[in-house]
């Protein structure tokens, strides 16, 4: 990273659901043009944190600035410059993909060609299909297409590769890297460490609502190795995933 300008800054974020403290004083920064990963076990508070930054949930306390806008005072401004893929979301019933993209274009006030958006995620053949009729991976890709409609400065992807086959996952990494290279900052959560290692410029490990480590994947691995860690078993030159890719090819599956 050449210049490390923070585009998101989170300070002492706390979120309580009644008595339960889901997020306990998180602080971190996301730099412009990086892919930032939030990692951690189920229930660690990743989705909660993302949705607070996305202005979809109220926080209990703390301060969040997104590209100079405060989540408390300027949520509308934030919504205009971010793209959001939710871990769980639905789309308007009875509409096909083109019509859904048109709807979002209207909601964002963006002037785009729906077909081009679908091409970006390789769904042009499904243009007339209903969202419900898509496979899990296609749904994820469609969700990502909807995050790009307003040409956002930042996109948030909550577990975009969960449930995808290895090819789709790799192709999605390429897509996400392209998006980053085009100048968009990406905040992503995932449970796949290989993915985080390949994709993310920096990652934060969250556990029980607290950050327990934050660095580049390389640095984190080096630190562990330097502390004398060794893998129990010598790794083979390839793993089963390599076999899968090798056998089934690289392309998207429909």
């Amino acid at each position, binding site marked *: 990273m050449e210049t490390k300008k923070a585009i998101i800054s989170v300070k002492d974020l706390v979120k309580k659901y009644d008595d339960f403290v889901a997020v306990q004083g998180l602080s971190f920064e996301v730099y412009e043009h990086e892919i930032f990963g939030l990692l951690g076990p189920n229930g660690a508070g990743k989705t909660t944190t993302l949705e607070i930054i996305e202005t979809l949930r109220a926080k209990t306390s703390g301060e969040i600035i997104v590209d100079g806008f405060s989540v408390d005072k300027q949520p509308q401004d934030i919504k205009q410059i971010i793209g959001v893929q939710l871990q769980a*979301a639905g789309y308007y019933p009875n509409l096909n993909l083109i019509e859904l993209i048109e709807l979002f274009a209207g909601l964002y006030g963006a002037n785009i060609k729906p077909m081009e958006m679908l091409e970006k995620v390789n769904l042009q053949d499904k243009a007339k299909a209903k969202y419900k009729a898509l496979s899990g991976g296609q749904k994820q890709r469609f969700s990502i297409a909807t995050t790009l409609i307003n040409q956002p400065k930042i996109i948030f992807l909550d577990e975009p590769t969960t449930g995808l086959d290895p090819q789709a996952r790799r192709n999605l990494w390429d897509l996400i890297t392209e998006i980053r290279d085009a100048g968009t900052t990406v905040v992503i959560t995932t449970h796949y460490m290989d993915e985080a290692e390949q994709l993310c410029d920096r990652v934060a490990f969250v556990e029980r609502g607290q950050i327990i480590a934050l660095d580049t994947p390389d640095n984190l691995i080096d630190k562990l190795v330097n502390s004398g860690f060794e893998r129990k078993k010598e790794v083979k030159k390839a793993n089963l995933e390599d076999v899968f890719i090798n056998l089934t090819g690289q392309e998207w599956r429909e």
Partner: protein
Amino acid sequence: MKKYNNLTATLALAKASFRSIMRSPSAVVFTLAFPLIFILVFGFLGGGGTHIDVGVTPGSDVNNPVMGMLEKTGMIRLIKDKSKAEFDKLLEKGNVDAMIDVHRKVNSAAYSVNVVYTSASRDKGGILKSVLNNIFYDKTLKPTVAEIKESTITGREYKTIDFILPGQLGFSLLSTGVFGTAFVFLSLRQTLVIKRFFATPVKRSSIVIGEGIARIGFALIGALFIILIGHFFFGFTLVNGALTVVNMLILATLGVIVFMGFGFIISGIAKSESMVPPISNIITLPQFLLSGTFFSIEAFPSWLQPISRALPLTYLNDAMRKVAFEGLGLWDVKFQIMILLIWGIGIYAVAVKVFKWE
């Protein structure tokens, strides 16, 4: 940064919602098929020869064998205690099928019977005529009835369809407003569609208004369809032609807006989609039965009438009939409109309290 345009967002939502409604079979069935089926059934049944309402002219003798015989037929209902002016109106519209006036002839024990028919109800007038003829030649009566004088006033013919169609239209608007709105908002909320919307800069008001525009547009297309089918295939009376249609559509808009309020309330209190139909039925069924959809509410027992007169659909139906058949303007039905507005204010006051976004 480009200025965000709420109107664009609202219209995009209206368009999406309208497309979605048009593809939803239940919406089309409720709004179009049901009312049309009822109209067909009643259009062909043509009223089903029920009974004949005969007004007794004020001042007429009532204790005479003629009236006794008429009542005994079981088919004729004698209506008393209304003023001459009221009767004239009813007769002209065909709400009363004929008037009868019985007097003892001067210096005679025999009666003179004076009957006035109305062209607004020729069929029933015709039945009455033959009944009277039978009576006239009835041996036991013959000596006491000296003569029957008959005449006909001209009124507008009031057909079954003129009564049935506005009622069906009103009910169609009620069900589209209530069921449609309740289902849509509940399912958008539960399937997290609304949550995804909230991640865009769209305003809540745009979501509500966009949905509203789509629903009203759909309801009006349905209404127009029903009116035109009724007019061209079943002879539904549109006194002032296109102007009447426009007035009816304006009333329909008001009606559907008020009824959508019920839908907003239900979407707020229903915990799941399966709870929508029962709650909606609680609201729509009584109105379906009691608001003069099939029968004039005057036909109900008197203890039921105040309930009927409290329901908003009663006033929409009433206003529709007055506008369509009597050719009244909207200002002439301001009372009905006012009651609907009062309902609207009440409903939306509750809706604002119970409506849920997430």
